[in-house]
């Protein structure tokens, strides 16, 4: 009998808090749940390719459509250029985005060979500015789990990845540090960056 009193208290408390919850939080819960299910779906597709027994070249090809569909490469590219995006001519912007696509694809496909027998666990989600951050732990055999956050934006109409945060460092912010510093040290000239990216892609094999 005695134990039912605190339980009743707890129930009353639960009812009171849920009644007091603002309507807006219902939307937040939805956005979080949507982002989590998106990361689960995208992650499962990636892991299925990465862990499969097909040849590395085939894996690289299979991953390309996934990146196109679920990663907002243009948004990441714009972000990485920082203040130089606004001052760039439309031709420069076009050329830059094309090069950036290739650089990002190369960076990702280079990594595929390192990830074999990978598993991941999707954790909680939280608002991150206008976007939603979803926490995951990526496990590789014989190595400590890597805490990784996926920043999901719905600005393009459907959920897409706009950033990956590994051990506290945002990939797009770090990349922006790299590009803007390079441009600033080359006299603020965007063409210098475009040439360097061209060279980077040409040297890639």
């Amino acid at each position, binding site marked *: 009998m005695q134990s039912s009193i605190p339980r009743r208290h707890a129930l009353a408390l639960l009812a009171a808090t849920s009644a007091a919850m603002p309507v807006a939080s219902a939307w937040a819960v939805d956005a979080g749940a949507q982002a989590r299910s998106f990361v689960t779906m995208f992650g499962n597709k990636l892991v299925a390719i990465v862990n499969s027994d097909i040849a590395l070249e085939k894996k690289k090809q299979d991953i390309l459509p996934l990146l196109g569909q679920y990663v907002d490469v243009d948004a990441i590219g714009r972000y990485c250029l*920082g*203040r130089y995006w606004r001052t760039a001519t439309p031709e420069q912007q076009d050329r830059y985005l094309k090069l950036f696509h290739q650089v990002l694809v190369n*960076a990702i496909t280079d990594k595929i060979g390192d990830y074999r027998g990978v598993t991941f666990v999707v954790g909680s989600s939280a608002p991150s500015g206008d976007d939603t951050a979803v926490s995951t732990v990526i496990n590789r055999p*014989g190595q*400590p789990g890597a805490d990784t956050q996926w920043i999901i934006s719905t600005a393009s109409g459907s959920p897409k990845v706009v950033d990956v945060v590994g*051990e*506290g*460092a*945002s990939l797009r*912010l*770090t*990349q*922006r*540090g*790299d*590009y*803007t*510093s*390079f441009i*600033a*040290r080359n006299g603020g000239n965007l063409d210098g*960056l475009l040439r*360097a*990216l061209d060279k*980077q892609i040409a040297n890639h094999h």
Partner: protein
Amino acid sequence: MRAETGSNSWSSRPFPSPRRSMLRVAGVALGLLGLASCAAPPPKDPDALAEYKEANDRYEKLNRKAFGLTMWANKYTLRPVAKAYIWAVPRPLRNSFGSLYQTMNEPVVFFNDVGAGKPRRAGDAFVRWCINMTAGLGGLIDVANYAGYKHHDNDGGLTLATWGVPSGPYLFLPALGPSSFRDGLGYGLDVGLSPWNYVPRGYGLLTFNWAYNIMGTINGMATNVDALDQVMKDSLDPYATIRSAYQQQRKAMAEAIKNDHRATVPDWYHTR
């Protein structure tokens, strides 16, 4: 470069011998004093100013020199040694050495957890030390990890951060790597907090300290060499990439410590 004490590549600190460490602390202190006189003026343009503030790198010219020198020296000294070490020593053994190094650093983590006002974290560090020094054969096996006491990092710079001390300008210290005024000061505190520096001097201890430091440094480099190679290859400006990643990670680590309200019981208790 630096040795690996935890999961985070840029956060770990080497664990130097008493004499070398005193010299290093003196060097860092002198360097900090000298720096105050050679800062570059901030830019006028508002966008450029925002970028300048984000980089937080008033001593960029000097830092870039230290970076260039460190990377050049690394290429011909530590990197080849670390590569040979990876080739010669199988991964499980390397993991064991890493775990030994981590365990020996556990007292520093403990004192910093206490300093940060996180008794439960300190308790975990203490238990990790006790378990690994005994059942873990002096740290060679991370038994504590299997018992539910996972490793966590802490150092003087992070403790100061939890006290609200701002990071101050970014610094790249020769041989030590990315740092800041606060983290440089914290490094000095850590040297003082390490019990190994208070054990009576003797040939045995000196040998241990040298072996320990050299092993820790090589093992740390071996853990990070691929990541470092990749940054040097993929970045257009590796210095700026490391600067950005380091400052973001330090901020995230300080936040994580502030928000860590862990329970007093280990993981295995809940799963029973």
